[in-house]
């Protein structure tokens, strides 16, 4: 299908972009990488009156590290984040998830901020951001505010960003020593959206887990943090039995959707398998980062 008509603006500065959003609010869609928005436009499922193209905002690109946090500009392309040493060193869970995003051509254009602002619950980055308690920096004409990941994902394709705000940066904490990570997904084919995905991170000191992060993709209309399962893990020694218990706990309260690719029961089963496998892999990797 062909895209429907829309007004088009390509602001040269973030301030201009914010001004446009303030003026047009919900009537405008922000065009970042386009790998999610343009298909919606082409299928005529989205019909914004205006498209604000922020690909000219070079100031929103880039990875920097300060104070134990990695700040990634919203317009940083997926492939650039994949190639970033800072990301690989300090945010290994993000580095592990990036290759799962679609295919290489998607990652040529897709952006870190775009995926997180779009907030498809089956996408990889929302689960990673939620697992790591990332922070979302949005800007309006009133200035910047910082929204923690726990408050960012409000509903299906809905975030805490107001219509007059633009996401400028996402901040990830740097992984502590002794952290092992695993990102996995069960997808119908290589590169597809996850039927169920899992972002897992374990920090191990001595023989005991000091920090555990588990977040699912694809099990709800938002990414889901398995906080209870995390608590079960902290303070314990890694073991297959422990991971099995965590899997049971993590999936007990899940209420996944039914769709063409799987029933709720199927997703729960797969989620449990991913927790068992993901925690084992993360524990194995943790050894390497001591």
């Amino acid at each position, binding site marked *: *299908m*062909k*895209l*429907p*008509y*829309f*007004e*088009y603006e*390509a602001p040269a500065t973030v301030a201009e972009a914010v001004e446009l959003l303030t003026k047009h609010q919900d009537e405008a869609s922000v*065009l970042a990488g*386009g*790998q999610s928005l*343009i*298909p919606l*436009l*082409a*299928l005529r499922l989205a019909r914004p009156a205006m*498209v604000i*193209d922020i*690909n000219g905002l070079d100031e929103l690109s880039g990875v920097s590290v300060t104070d134990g946090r990695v700040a990634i500009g919203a317009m940083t392309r997926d*492939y650039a984040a994949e190639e970033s040493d800072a990301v690989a060193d300090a945010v290994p869970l993000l580095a592990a998830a990036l290759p799962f995003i*679609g*295919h*290489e*051509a*998607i990652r*040529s*254009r897709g952006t870190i901020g775009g995926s997180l602002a779009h907030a498809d619950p089956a996408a990889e980055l929302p689960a990673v951001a939620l697992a790591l308690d990332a922070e979302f920096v949005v800007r309006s004409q009133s200035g910047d505010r910082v929204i923690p990941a726990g408050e960012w994902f409000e509903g299906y394709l809905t975030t805490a960003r107001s219509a007059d705000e633009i996401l400028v940066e996402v901040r990830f904490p740097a992984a502590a020593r002794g952290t092992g990570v695993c990102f996995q997904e069960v997808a119908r*084919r*290589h*590169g597809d959206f996850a039927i169920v995905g899992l972002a897992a991170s374990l920090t191990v000191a001595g023989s005991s887990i000091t920090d555990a992060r588990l977040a699912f993709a694809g099990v709800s209309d938002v990414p889901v943090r398995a906080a209870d399962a995390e608590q079960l893990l902290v303070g314990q020694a890694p073991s297959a039995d422990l991971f099995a218990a965590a899997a049971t706990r993590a999936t007990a309260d899940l209420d996944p959707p039914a769709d063409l690719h799987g029933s709720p029961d199927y997703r729960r089963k797969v989620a449990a398998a991913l927790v068992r496998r993901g925690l084992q892999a993360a524990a194995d990797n943790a050894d390497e980062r001591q």
Partner: protein
Amino acid sequence: MPDITVSVNGAARTGSVEARKTLADFLREDLDLTGTHVGCEHGVCGACTVIVDGRPTRSCLMLAVQAAGSEVTTIEGLAPDGTLGALQQAMWDSHSFQCGFCTPGFVMQATAFLSAHPDADEQQIREALSGNICRCTGYQSIIDGVLLAAERGRQG
């Protein structure tokens, strides 16, 4: 309708397009570069793959206006004087294709991939090409073409 100038296959090309027109449609209709094909228009099949600023890109997921100021290479740009490039020759030798509709997308994706990963093995090549759909071949002959090109490239 804004005028845009895009560098396509090394030449500055100008057109007057609505903002909603995709790069794929601009190449095919405004520039008569019909080698880039449209297979799904929602970014899954890869038939529309071109190279933008050195990166493989789905041209159906880019607006033409977004390509202004970028360097775009299409299938027509690989063998401008009619002599097949090394990858194309290897694919010819390997009987890589049948109906040919997916071909330009595969050639562009493989071109970009091989230039960045000249020593890729079969599994890496399969993953790199897994975003391009072919309905005719079952992929083996395409993979063989890419492997042959890589091997010849190593032999110099």
